[in-house]
């Protein structure tokens, strides 16, 4: 669980994640805003549908992948912006 210090003066940013409204602070990455809002699981893996959330927060692990505007992006490298529609990436059909 994460809690925020200070930053009360910062403007708020409202977007949706899998249909649910999320309110972050201006300057947050999507990952930071989602974590602050209590979202831990960002996606399920395409291989075994295992749940995943952010791990490295610096753009190297690619575990925080989400879809914005039809494109898979790293939530930790994508600024939270007003009105974004963010979803978990679809899980392709499992293979034997």
């Amino acid at each position, binding site marked *: 669980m994460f809690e925020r210090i200070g930053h009360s003066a910062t403007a708020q940013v409202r977007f949706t994640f899998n249909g649910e409204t999320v309110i972050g*602070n201006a300057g947050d990455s999507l990952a930071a805003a989602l974590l602050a809002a209590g979202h831990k699981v960002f996606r399920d893996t395409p291989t075994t549908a295992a749940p995943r959330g952010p791990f490295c927060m610096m753009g190297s*692990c690619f575990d925080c992948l989400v879809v914005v505007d039809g494109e898979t992006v790293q939530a930790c490298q994508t600024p939270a912006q007003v009105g974004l529609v963010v979803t978990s990436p679809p899980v392709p059909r499992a293979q034997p």
Partner: protein
Amino acid sequence: MTRPDLIVIGAGPAGMAGATMAAQQGMSVLVLDEQPAPGGQIFRNLGASSTQQRQMLGPDYTAGQMLLDGLAAAPLTLISGAVVWDVDQERTVTYSKDGKAYRVKANYLLLSTGAMERPVPLPGWTLPGVMTAGAAQILMKTSGLLAKDAVLAGSGPLLYLVAVQMLRAGTPPKALVETQTPANYRAVLHHAGGALRGWKALAKGARMLRELRRASAPRYTAARDLAITGDTAASGLRFTAKGQVHHLECATVLLHQGVVPNTQITRALRLDHQWHAGQRCFHPVLSPWGQSSHSQIYVAGDGAAIAGAKAAEHAGQCAAADILRCAGRITAAQRDTLAASAKRNLAGEQALRPFLDALYAPPAAILRPPDAVTVCRCEEVSAGDIRAYARLGCKGPSQTKAFGRAGMGPCQGRTCGLTVTEVLAQATGLSPQDTGYFKIRAPLKPVTLGEVAALHSPAPQQPEGQDP
């Protein structure tokens, strides 16, 4: 921008210092940086940080202001938010920004892409709620977010630093679980060379530990058999310390085992690399000035070898000075003068490293985890899978990649590369050097096909009629 003399990739301490010096000496310099603002991970968001964040993060963080100021004052071009996804032999750099790809070529490249945290493969490390200590620190720097009731586990100076920063912010960690053993402390006695500075660093660590103790944060040492518990998310950390099995309930576990160079670009360029037994990672082979096996490509900072932010700053200046010499702008003697203090200070910082490497050496069970542990997070390949491929005859990571997809996911092997090399080397009996590393290919970061396609300039097609 017309063809610059120098492209610097990464605006951390090495890149900022190197770019600033080269620009001050008259070179046209383009700095490409992935983050929204310069600073690298160490000084991330420093320029926009609040007073409260600066207090929490302390003087090691605010020390970066001089570098930021220097960069801002230097006559150079900085492009933030630029994701470099290809660098080729002819020194053409391809990057994307805001959904569009660009190509730019320079006479010289300075690669200052820094470090990444060493992967910490242990049971349950892929569960949501498990992050790196560095990730927690980035959340403090960028968003003022603090992990509550988190357990910090592992080894290395950053573990203490993050703990103290959390403490200063009023949310101390629930516990500190250290994997260092008495053997680590005995090992440092062999490193007399960097001992004085080493003991100073140790004393700094001890001060931080006293601070933590006063806050009565429980501390466990020589912990082993670490495992994250939980089904769909982390619910606790189990480990053995002093012969006793502990289980700490917590929703957030912050792991750390030091940092390693991010060698994606130097690998993609197929520059020479050498295994470093002390740091348990590969380093690009460099001259004392940072020149790689490609004479017009330099590497500086933690991307070259782990030595910390101060060393990175000095190394960036040394590289810039030698690039100026190589370009014929200054003589070797002028270079030596220009970089005299940087060179001296760099040597001092580097002397400390063997001490810290030995003190915070990652445990064998992390470097070469048991069979059941996931090694490749992207493709979900276990250490046991890698060992099975070794038994089938695989001698190196390229073969295990083909057999089991480890390293084929979106992270391009960043997270599993070193573990695959270590596990394979152990299984085959070859050295890590002879085992080698993944062959890194473009793109260095995923990029949309639309962006790539936009770079296409129609040219005469291949003759048809050939078999596919």
